Each structure stands twice: as C-alpha cells, then as structure tokens.
C-alpha cells in the first residue's frame, strides 16, 4: 500500500549503515531507546479539536515490544479459539484478534495509575495491563489459578493493582462505570485518567450519553474510546447508527478519529487525549479497527460480512504486519529475527496453555466465597438447602 512507502520515505539515516547493523539489529534494537520519528499511516480527524501531529516519537525498543506483544495477543486468541472448540472453554468467548493495536498502543501512552475499563472482549487488554497468559488461560478454563479464581470467566477478567477494572458483560454499562472511575480519580486528586472502551454496538446506548453529559458538566478526566470494528454482533454500523461517526457523537464533547490498526497512531492519540482530559474533561476517541473472528465463538462472522472483506483487511491493514514492515524498513530487526520472536511467543502461549490445563478446578468451598466482603455469618444455601448451606464469612 502507499502507506508503506510513506514510512520508508521517513526512515532515518540507518539505511546507509545497513550492512553493519543487520547482524546486531534485533538484540540491539530491543534495548535501543533512541528516538525515532515515524509517521502514522493516515492522519487523525478531529471533531471540535485540532488533531495531533502524524509524527510519532517512538524508539526501536518500543516498536519491537509492540511486535512481540501483539504477536503474543494474536497467539493467545487463536489458542483460545482451539480451546473453545475442544470444549475446554465454555459459555461465551469473545476474541480480540485484529484489534491488538488498540490495547498495545494505549498501554504505551499511559501509566498503571491510569485506569482502563472495557467490555467482555477483554483478554488482550488484561494482558496489556500486565496480566499473564497463565492467569488468562486458567480463567478461561475455569481453574483456580485464573485471574478471577475461576469465578468470572472470559468476560470478567480484572487486575485492580494495574488499574484494570474489567471485564463487563452488559453492553455499554462499562462507560458510566468508567466515568465513575474518572470521578474518583479527580476527587482523589490523583492526576490520572480513565479510558472507557466500548464498541460501535454500545455507542448507541443511552447510558453512555447520560454519563458523558455528567462527565462534561464535572470536567472528568475520562476518555471514551469507541473500538469501532464496524459490526455490533451481526449488525453493521450503518444499520444501527443513524450517524456512525462515533467520534462526533459526543456533540459538545470533542473527538478524534484514529486508525486503530496502527499501534503508533493509537499511542499518539492516547497520549494526546490523556493530556487533554486532565486539563479539560472528557473526550472521545474512535478507533477504526477490525475483528477477524465473529462476535463470539458462536458466530462464524461470515454471514454478515464477506470473506473478501476479512481477508482484505488482513492483507492491507493488519496491525502486526504493519509493525513488521516498519521494523524491516527501519532495519530494527531482520525477517528471521522477527520470525524467531513469533516462534518464542508461540511457545510461550503453548506452555501457558499446557500449564493452565494442569491447574485444578476451584475448591468447592469457594462457591460461597466473596459474595460479600463482610458476610456477618449470614446463612447462604446451595440448591438443596437441607443438603448444602454455609455461613458467609
């Protein structure tokens, strides 16, 4: 695509040093923190705001970490697909493959004091906040070593110590919750922000506008991030939204439209809006992204969109391939070094899966645990209360 040419045109003087650098490239590059400036594939579009520059400051270390992290996320989701088909994962399983750049770019722009809250499509966000593959797979398979001790499942991953507040099953509910997190950050004078992620399907929810109204009245440091993958389950955006320009739907709240398949663009946008939100209040980000899987594992994802569309996006906009091209054109690593990273990540994922498979199910006693923080010894019951009852601790 023409975008790749734009990247090459901007590459540094490294190209002259090609022969010398090649063999040292990736091990050096992953520690290399010199600033590289790379242009985003497409410019940002602003609503009631001047968009940030397309020139993104990054480092070779960061770019390589993007590659590794996105590859790991991609592998994790593909492994989850197999586990679901072998019935080791039950119920709902909503996969994020295709959207990795949003999770990875956002994390690069913020700290662990900034909060993130998202929907049920939360596996990769959990990983980007510092969750481990083992915790993820164990939770998916309902084992006691899962991040929610097997009590939550795919839709309910949390990591409070990294300010990741889940993991929510009710479409749109996470947006007012995220505004509440931002309220608390402001109340506590924490100088941090909250990113509340939601999809194009949730973007039409009334509670979103209610919360946005209050956030604007109170100048809350909240960023509403619409991960627009263009389909709310099986309904294309143009069938659900009279105006699918989600970055403009805030009306009086400014917005920015971002190429969500470009991790550097995501990083730039998140950095920009964090500063904005701390100073001014809410702002909306619309990430133009895409999910390769269907809505969930029960949805083949091909009845409402063509296979050509899916493969077209994979060919032209895939976030991992783009970073690969950036790495190669800036000679930060060789083709084989990148393949090695992919192999390592694949191995990491396989090991985590096999370790997770060995984890035990939660002990039966935890059925009644954590209903309350303080149960005062109140009685609780199983299905046959004469056979099973307990006192809530």
């Amino acid at each position: 695509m023409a975008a790749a040419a734009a990247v090459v045109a901007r590459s540094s003087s490294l190209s002259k040093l090609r022969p010398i650098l090649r063999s040292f490239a990736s091990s050096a590059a992953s520690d290399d923190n010199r600033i590289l400036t790379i242009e985003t594939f497409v410019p940002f579009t602003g609503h009631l705001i001047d968009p940030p520059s397309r020139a993104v400051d990054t480092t070779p270390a960061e770019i390589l970490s993007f590659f590794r992290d996105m590859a790991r996320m991609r592998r994790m989701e593909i492994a989850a697909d197999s586990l679901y088909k072998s019935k080791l994962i039950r119920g709902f399983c909503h996969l994020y493959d295709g959207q990795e750049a949003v999770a990875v770019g956002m994390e690069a722009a913020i700290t662990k004091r900034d909060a993130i809250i998202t929907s049920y499509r939360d596996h990769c966000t959990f990983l980007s906040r510092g969750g481990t593959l083992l915790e993820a797979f164990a939770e998916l398979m309902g084992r006691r070593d899962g991040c929610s001790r097997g009590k939550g499942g795919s839709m309910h991953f949390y990591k409070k110590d990294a300010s990741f507040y889940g993991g929510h099953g009710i479409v749109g509910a996470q947006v007012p919750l995220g505004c509440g997190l931002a309220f608390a950050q402001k109340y506590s004078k924490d100088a941090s922000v909250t990113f509340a992620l939601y999809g194009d399907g949730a973007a039409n929810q009334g509670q979103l506008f209610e919360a946005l109204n209050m956030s604007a009245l109170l100048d809350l440091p909240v960023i509403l991030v619409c991960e627009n993958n263009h389909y709310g389950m099986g309904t294309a955006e143009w069938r659900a939204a009279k105006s699918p320009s989600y970055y403009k739907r805030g009306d009086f709240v400014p917005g920015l439209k971002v190429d969500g398949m470009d991790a550097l663009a995501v990083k730039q946008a998140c950095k920009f809006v964090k500063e904005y939100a701390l100073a001014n209040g809410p702002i909306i980000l619309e990430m133009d992204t895409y999910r390769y899987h269907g809505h969930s594992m029960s949805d083949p994802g091909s009845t409402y969109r063509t296979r050509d569309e899916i493969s077209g996006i994979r060919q032209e906009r895939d976030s991992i391939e783009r970073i690969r091209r950036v790495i190669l054109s800036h000679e930060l690593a060789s083709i084989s070094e990148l393949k090695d990273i992919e192999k390592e990540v694949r191995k990491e994922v396989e090991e985590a899966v096999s370790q997770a498979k060995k984890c035990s199910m939660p002990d039966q006693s935890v059925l009644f645990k954590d209903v309350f923080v303080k149960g005062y010894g109140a009685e609780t019951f199983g299905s046959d209360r004469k056979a099973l009852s307990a006192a809530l601790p």
Partner: protein
Amino acid sequence: MLRVLRQKVGCGASPAMIFGQALQKVLPAGSVLPRKYSSAAKEMNVREALNSALDEEMSADPKVFLMGEEVGEYQGAYKISKGLLEKYGPDRVLDTPITEAGFTGIGVGAAYYGLRPVVEFMTFNFSMQAIDHIINSAAKSNYMSAGQISVPIVFRGPNGAAAGVGAQHSQCFAAWYAHVPGLKVLTPYSAEDARGLLKAAIRDPDPVVFLENELLYGESFPVSAEVLDSSFCLPIGKAKIEREGKHVTITAYSKMVGYALQAAEILSKEGISAEIINLRSIRPLDRATINASVRKTNRLVTVEEGFPQHGVGAEICMSVVEESFEYLDAPVERIAGADVPMPYAANLERMAVPQVDDIVRAAKRACYRSVPMAAAA
C-alpha cells in the same frame, strides 16, 4: 419545653445540638407510638435521623459523598440532605441530572475505585432505570472478581407507597433487591433504625440498598443518648423485637411495623399477645430471630406493603416451614399490598395497602379466633 432556634439543620454533631433541634419540631398529629416519655425526653424524627447520620458519616470519612437529584441546592427532595451542600461543598454533595442509569453507573464506578458513594433515588421506582448497575455492576462484582473489586456503595431513597401518588410511584422493591446475592437490603422503621442502619450501611464494604419510607420521614421517635452518639451503629442482618408476646408472631418492616404495633395494642385488649418483629434487614434476613419467635408463639403473620406474589412474606413463611414446621399450630398468614397496580382514588388506595384491621384479622385467624371464611362466599 426547651426552645433552641437554629437556622441550619444537620450541622454539627453534638447530641445536645440535635436534641435542641429535635425539640423545636412539633410532633406530628396522630403519631403512631404512644408517648410513654415525659416531654423532656429526646425525640427525633426519621428525617433528622437520616440527615444527622449522613452528616456524621461524611464528617468522619472524606471518601463518603452524596449524589442524586436535588440533593444539593434544593436541600433534598424530601429535605433529607438539608444543609449538607453548605457544609461539605459541591464536590461532595452532587446534584445530578435526571439520568439514573448514568449517575448510578458513575456512583458504582467511583466505588470500584475506593470512594464511598451514597446514591439517592428520589424514589426507588426510579431505581428501575438503573437496576442493571445495582445488580450487575454492583452486587455481583466482588464475586466475579474473586474479591478484587469490592463496591462500598449505598443506594438509598423512599420505597413503597406514599399517599395518592399512583401506580408508577408506589411500588415496594424490597423483594426484588433482596432476591439478589451480593446485595444487602435494609428497611429502617424508627429514628433509631434510620440512624443506626444508615451509618452501618455507609460503613459497610458491600453494596447496600437502603429502603426508606416517605410517610415515616416526619414521624418522631424517642432516641437514647446512645443512639445520638456519632459512633452509634446497628448490626446488619439482625431483626429487633419491638414488642414481646406469647400467642402470635407478627413480622413487618418499614411503615408496617407501626401498623403491626397498633394491631398488637388492639389484639392485647382481646387477650391475644402479639410479638412484633421489626425485620430491619431483609437481606441478610434474620431467620434465627423469626424462627425462635415462632417456636415460642407457634403462629405467624407476615406483613408487608409490597405485592404479595414472591414477596418477603413468602420467603419468611418458607423459612419457618423449613426450620420450624413442627412448631406451627396454624398455617402462616400473609398480609401484603393488594395484587393490583396502586390506584389513585383514596378509598381504592386504602384497599390496596394493608391496614391495621387486616393485620388484626389475620392474627385472629392464626389464633383461630375468627369465623373461617366460607369458600364459596
């Protein structure tokens, strides 16, 4: 009678000041409780009890804040939050737009972060607009996250019937909220209940649904020095035996406790000694106190204002059948609101809400003191 004129209600926490404020209020005519105390006794109405509890808890913990419609500048739709905006400022007393789903979600999110919100619903009928956040975002979070995300929030406001407000503004939600594991549901009756339970609710680390009653706000009750102390707190999950008795147990909550006490007076003149249990807590339900009482009296009448089907009384009856069946000498009787949306006309409304004579009649039935109704009548 001491007359202490004060401009502001609810500021300052000293019992002496509250005593002064309380005494300047004229007791409402037709106050339910017989006045057993001299005119120098400390009395407080439920509104003052709630206001003082909120004030004291906000003073003690800077993380506590209040949000809801008209709680600030309007001083509260029912004046429960009078004076609080002036004292604590707009950062801690927030007037919200009329958007329950949005502001309740914001409150729950703030609780996730560690603040202690008190979310007021102007009436619990409007809580239905936000019920997803109460149930799915608040009640279940601690469990789903295996203890990572606790939700120390209080949802409070008037519940049940007022007077002449019609079908959409009169529903009792005790049974709905008490259905859900992960929620605590409290139903104060007296000023002591209001103070002690609201303080307990605000201090509690779990989500609490606090069901008040509009018609009780103006009712005064005697309060001891212990109740007036700012550290006063009532335990959650414990019922109170308001009146001891031997022949029949009557359970009730909120306004119906007053009616049950009136019924007990009437019954006592006919030789029936009724034990009145003020439930105080619908979840956790104090099954131990209820069952102990029924094992003593062998007869039970459950009283509630809400719709009968799947109501609080149904749960109490089942609990007693499960645990104390052999002790029952009569079928459990159930008094509840009529199984109709609340009508407006005063005479129909009166038929739709339990009255004292309904409770008396049911108690007599439980004691086999009335002629059984003919099936084909």
